[in-house]
């Protein structure tokens, strides 16, 4: 642990009554990293960000930002943050609000530049409380990037943005990271985490379940994806009775789905054994594919494994992974 680390959590715990919203989390973020914070609803993402930004105090453990306390780092203008539901001021225009944010920052960027980067130039004269969800998100982003900060924290930044706006947003963010800033974002969109983050943190039930690159996390589950088309395209007309129950009995299989078109998708902890047994059934699977898990599937596998009953995580995860 050195003072040059951007964020250091040292065994941080935050309780609400008996619930441990954040449970003994330790992590270190370094300059220039783009880090995604993933987790089902209620995993502790928002609490983690609140602790990081000094909006909440930990019950135990310490949070250090850029070698100082969160509040000191914010006062020094070294942190720009965008909250999920940060309300905007009424009766003022977008430009007035951005000018105000620039005025507060010790090392501000020019107002016009901040407006342009957030894609707000065309709506700079509009009232800040009369914007669409995506436009309001862009204003919050402008407030978070009003000056030269070392750390940018974003909670669900692209919620309410359409695909084009989202793409433009991440291009801007990558630009920020390229300039040596640390970018930490919480998201529900796993494809965003996969495409943008150098590093992914998976939170579940307040604990840090995984910390690594997206590739490492996908591999860490030890799971593979096995998929193939059933002979003849459907269950009917095949010489071997191959139904879902039979597939589930194959060794190392943990999940099976059969699409109406006859495509079988399985998750296996030992793909070699599974495929071998599949041939052993006398089946000739067409278009057989064995591949690593996508981040989304890895995420589901990770959080399910962690959850003894299996139900809590499943519902949470479904909400967390919009189609």
């Amino acid at each position, binding site marked *: 642990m050195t003072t040059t680390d951007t964020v250091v959590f040292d065994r941080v715990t935050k309780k609400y009554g008996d619930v441990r919203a954040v449970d003994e989390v330790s992590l270190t973020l370094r300059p220039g990293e783009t880090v995604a914070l993933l987790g089902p609803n209620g995993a502790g993402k928002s609490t983690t960000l*609140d602790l990081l*930004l000094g*909006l*909440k*105090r930990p019950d135990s453990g310490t949070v250090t930002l850029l070698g100082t306390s969160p509040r000191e780092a*914010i*006062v*020094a*203008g070294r*942190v*720009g*943050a965008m*909250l999920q*539901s*940060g*309300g*905007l*001021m*009424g*009766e*003022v225009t977008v430009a*007035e*609000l951005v*000018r*105000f*944010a620039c*005025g*507060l*920052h*010790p090392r501000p960027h020019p107002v016009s530049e901040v407006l342009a980067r957030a894609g707000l130039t065309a709506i700079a004269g509009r009232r800040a409380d009369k914007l669409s969800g995506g436009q309001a998100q862009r204003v*919050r982003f402008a*407030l*978070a990037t009003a000056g030269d900060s070392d750390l940018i924290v974003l909670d669900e930044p692209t919620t309410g943005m359409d695909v084009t706006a989202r793409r433009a947003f991440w291009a801007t963010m990558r630009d920020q990271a390229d300039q040596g800033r640390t970018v930490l974002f919480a998201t529900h969109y796993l494809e965003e985490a996969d495409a943008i983050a150098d590093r992914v943190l998976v939170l579940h039930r307040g604990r840090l379940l995984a910390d690594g690159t997206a590739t490492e996390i996908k591999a860490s589950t030890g799971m593979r994806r096995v998929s193939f088309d059933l002979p003849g395209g459907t269950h009917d007309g095949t010489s071997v009775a191959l139904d879902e129950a039979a597939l589930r009995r194959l060794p190392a299989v943990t999940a099976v789905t059969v699409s109406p078109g006859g495509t079988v998708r399985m998750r296996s902890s030992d793909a070699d054994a599974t495929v071998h047994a599949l041939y052993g059934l006398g089946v000739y699977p067409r278009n057989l594919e064995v591949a690593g898990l996508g981040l989304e599937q890895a995420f589901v596998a990770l959080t399910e494994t962690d959850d003894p009953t299996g139900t809590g995580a499943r519902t949470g995860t479904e909400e967390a992974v919009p189609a």
Partner: protein
Amino acid sequence: MNGLIRLEILRVLRNRKFQFFSVLYPSLLFLLIAGTADSTGPLDGTDGLTLPAYLMVSMASFGALTAVLMGNSERIAKERENGWVRQLRLTPLPGRGYVLAKTAAAAVGALPAIVLVFVVAAVVKDVRLDAWQWLALTAAIWAGSLVFAALGVAIGYAATGDAVRPITMIVYFGLSLLGGLWMPSTTFPGWLQDVAAWLPTHAYAALGRAIEQHHAPGVQDVTVLLAFFVLFTGGAAWLYRKDTLKA
């Protein structure tokens, strides 16, 4: 900090509804009440003040009260709820900056309310005072409004966005009516007069009236106002800290 004060003042000036209730409404009420009454003779129990002179102080105080109380309580509660207060805590703005900017903006809104009542009273109802009295009155009513600005902050931090309007209204009407801002408290039954004498609004208006009567302000009135100022400021600070820890 200055940036926020500037923005908050802009917002007050742009809010038409707020302008109507804090700036125009007290003057209209003054005309309505003073216009129908016999305005030449001195009013009972007021040490020789005419009704317009008496009412002028009441309505100027009422206007200032409206501006600072409503301006602070409702906006703070709403902005706490919609997350703007949290957003501000992620900027280098000092923690008290938000409350100070709100209060400064409310005070800017209160000044025209006070002055307009004076102008209307002088022009329409021929209220005549010495130059120093006009200045002292303006200063006293303006400074005294800080007591209610602090109350507004306290309510803003205590109430939720849904509850803040009814709570503010009850406090506002209760204080205005019982403090004798709408009708002289000398018309109240004896026991109610005893209660009213201890209300901050009563002391507030008495301060202005003492100036009209060439008196020094009463010790009890000044003490009551100061006590409420300490109470409201302390309460607001305590609620603010509680809210900040919760956030």
